[in-house]
């Protein structure tokens, strides 16, 4: 793998390779380049995940011609597919090297932060939604209890926008969550359930179930489960699997002309 990356950099097949490097005991995303080829020997893989493709969008926004290589797990692969379909990245300029993450006897290690979910505490179990339950279990509560439990979760939101900012497929130039007609500025708790449902609706046909939003949520809100439930509907009704299917989402009603150009670098 490292030889391949060195080769790509030397031959100019990629200008920048996005991987991870250990810095003072922390595996950090790192930009590997030809001028510092020796660093490639320090490339590491592990359970810690950052949205590398989001960094790639930042680089491409600066220079649309830049050739980017990156390490891809299964979730990164799905995210890239979505980003190609939504014209956020040009597939001709992106090269990837797969890394193992899923557990298997054939792989050296199971390597994903999703494999060790935090257990819900007793209070959350009693009044909220355990992040690790299945869609079926979540639907098991009767309607009134379901509303109460989800409201408990949404109520905790501190409106940090981390779920959006960590998400590899949230790339809109103008985000609805900042639109004052939908979400008032300055108020906490946020407009419930609008804030979370707007995002859930946007994730329909787009969320690739990487779980990074939930990892970034300081309030431990079961976001992944929420978007999974939304996308189950998308799958049942439209037979569409975001990140897997190679056509645009059924929700791209505006057609190919939709203006989702990368954010300006000075924009929030």
């Amino acid at each position, binding site marked *: 793998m490292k030889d391949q990356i060195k080769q790509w950099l030397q031959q100019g097949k990629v200008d920048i390779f996005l991987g991870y490097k250990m810095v003072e005991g*922390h595996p950090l995303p790192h930009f590997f380049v030809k001028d510092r080829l020796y660093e490639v020997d320090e490339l590491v893989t592990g359970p810690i995940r*950052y949205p590398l493709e989001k*960094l790639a969008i930042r680089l491409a926004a600066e220079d649309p011609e*830049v050739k980017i290589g990156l390490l891809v797990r299964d979730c990164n692969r799905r995210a890239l597919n979505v980003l190609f379909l939504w014209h956020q990245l040009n597939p001709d300029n992106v090269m990837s090297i797969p890394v193992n993450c899923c557990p298997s006897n054939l792989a050296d290690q199971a390597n994903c932060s999703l494999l060790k979910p935090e257990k819900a505490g007793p209070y959350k179990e009693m009044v909220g939604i355990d992040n690790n339950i299945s869609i079926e279990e979540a639907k098991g509560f009767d309607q009134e209890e379901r509303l109460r439990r989800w409201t408990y979760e949404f109520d905790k939101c501190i*409106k940090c926008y981390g779920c959006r900012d960590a998400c590899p497929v949230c790339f809109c130039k103008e985000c609805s969550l900042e639109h004052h007609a939908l979400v008032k500025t300055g108020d906490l708790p946020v407009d419930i359930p609008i804030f979370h449902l707007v995002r859930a609706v946007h994730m329909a046909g787009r969320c690739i179930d990487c779980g990074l939003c939930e990892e970034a949520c300081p309030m431990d809100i079961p976001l992944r489960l929420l978007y999974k439930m939304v996308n189950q509907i998308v799958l049942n009704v439209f037979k569409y699997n975001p990140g897997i299917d190679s056509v645009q989402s059924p929700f791209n009603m505006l057609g190919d002309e939709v203006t989702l150009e990368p954010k300006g*670098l000075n924009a929030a």
Partner: protein
Amino acid sequence: MNGKIVPSVCSYCGTGCGVLFQVVNGKLVGTMPLKTHPVNEGKLCIKGWHLHEYVNSPTRLRSPLIKMNGRFRQATWDKALHFASDRLKAIIEKYGPDSVGVLVSAKITNEENYLAQKFARAAIGTNNVDHCARL
């Protein structure tokens, strides 16, 4: 095209969350939480997520200002420091060291806070040291 990721600590409050700055072509373009940081474990509040904005803000103060005749004027560091020390000396001479108070901050490091109290006690000679969180 060049870029790098720079680990740092959020300077907005005393929690001290670990952050990663994204630098592209020498310009700070984004902030992410540091996932393996023991304090914030990959999470940030909205201030932390937007650290890069104040660094690049056009209204950011880039040099000291001295207020003269009711108006702030730009000054060099040397000039500002001399001005401050002259005024402090004059005030201490006239009203005594306890006429001065030193306010420290959660936004600076432990070591800088230590230096600030040392400055108050050893250089100025007062125990009037307090913290922004108690104001």
